[in-house]
């Protein structure tokens, strides 16, 4: 499952057409959903598939089909930043992997026997984190207003 996620994520970087990149990203997300399911947090797996694959990626695929723009043949696929980008990539992976591996799992508590249940999660979400829950609704309203503003701007550009 992890190999599948990693492979399709790497494929995302080299594919040329946006639609194929989107399909590779969908494969990655489905594989991640599978990993969540295997870890025992089934509701997060369900929401991963529902929200990411069902909403976000369908939106992106729809936009790609709507634009129906092929990249011009002469266009370069990669920007001039690819050498510094690769250097940063190598450094980041090196630092993070070394820190994870050298730390070991000694400092972590022993693994819990069973992951938390959906009931526990919901109770925690609405009692201890209620403020975050309420702020989320404000955030969503702000996002809707901003999207409407962007649409208004695009109408003005057209007309």
């Amino acid at each position, binding site marked *: 499952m*992890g190999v599948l996620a*990693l492979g399709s*994520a*790497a494929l*995302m*970087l080299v594919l040329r057409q*946006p639609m194929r*990149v989107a399909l590779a*990203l969908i494969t*990655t*997300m489905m594989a991640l959903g599978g*990993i*969540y399911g295997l*870890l025992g*947090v089934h509701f*997060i797996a369900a929401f991963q598939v529902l*929200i*990411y694959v069902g909403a*976000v990626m369908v*939106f*992106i695929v729809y*936009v790609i089909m*709507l*634009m129906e723009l092929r*990249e*011009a043949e002469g*266009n*370069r*696929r*990669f*920007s001039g930043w690819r050498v510094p980008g690769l250097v*940063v*990539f190598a450094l980041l*992976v090196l630092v*993070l*992997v070394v820190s*994870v*591996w050298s730390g070991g*799992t000694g400092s*972590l*508590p022993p*693994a*819990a026997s*069973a*992951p*938390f249940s959906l009931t526990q*999660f919901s109770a*925690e*979400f609405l009692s*201890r*984190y209620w403020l*975050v829950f309420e702020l*989320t609704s404000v*955030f*969503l309203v702000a*996002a809707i207003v901003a*999207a409407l503003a962007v649409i208004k701007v*695009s109408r003005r*550009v*057209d007309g």
Partner: protein
Amino acid sequence: MDRTQLLLGLSIALFALGLLGLIIRRNALVMLMCMELMLNGVNLSLVTFSERYADAGGAVLVFLVFIVATAEIALAIPIVLLLVRHTRSMDIGRYTDLKG
């Protein structure tokens, strides 16, 4: 090397690949998708720790990341559409007239 370390390695790899794609690709939509990939990598590490500690706090954070990612895409896509209609191209090199 146990399961937690493997999953953390996978999440590091996903995040780094997303960052690499964000830096080296020129297509605006592909860059957006690479940002989603980075968010997915972070989510995987959050779920891993949350499951390891049997604490629901990490899962709450994962839900918030879901919400932020959805709102981000819902805002970014109309902007990209506007830019594409304006310049007839998805190449970020052509968006130089965005300077204020």
